[in-house]
């Protein structure tokens, strides 16, 4: 069953907060194509855990400062 990812991210906001870093700059720093950065930003692609850590390291924030997952209502 294909379902959309529930993972959201703040990459766009973090890029602007970090000297208006371009998608191409971020892509080069994490070793992926610019199209992959665009796909991650738009929620069309969930990166691997390793790529997620590389992105967080670029912005010098913890992983959950970049990627967010909704709380499970059943757990509350």
């Amino acid at each position: 069953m294909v379902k959309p990812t529930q993972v959201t991210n703040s990459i766009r906001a973090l890029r602007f907060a970090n000297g208006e870093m371009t998608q191409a700059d971020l892509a080069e720093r994490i070793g992926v194509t610019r199209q992959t950065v665009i796909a991650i930003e738009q929620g069309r692609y969930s990166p691997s855990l390793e790529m997620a850590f590389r992105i967080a390291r670029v912005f010098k924030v913890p992983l959950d400062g970049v990627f967010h997952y909704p709380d499970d209502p059943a757990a509350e």
Partner: protein
Amino acid sequence: MTHQEKRAWIMLVVSIPAYGVYAGIILSRAGGQPLPQVPYAATLLWTIGASILASIVLEIALGVVNPRASRLKDDRDRQIGRLGDYTGQFFVIIGATAAMLMAMAGWDRFWIANVIYLCFFLSAVLGAATKIIAYRKGFPQW
């Protein structure tokens, strides 16, 4: 557009006319006679050869038109590539199974060769289309 997505488009753009030309030539040669009596082998091999050559020429042409385009292949490209190949493989299995059963049942070689070629063509189109959809609409999460 990434280099890998361009390659998927090339596969799609080349495969469809190549098979279309082949099917058109074979059907026009038939002219009322049974299809197994139509000479097909040389046409089949020529269209496969021409489609491989056209893919190479198109890829070189894209490199000449935009020499600074990145040829980087990352995790996403590899995942989409695997998804496309896995999806396209469906028709390869159907073609191989059909050919095996047709050979066991004593069908004419014309039909065996053509069912294999048709399934190779469908595999290429389905694989390339899957890759393009994954690039455009997003990678599915299971």
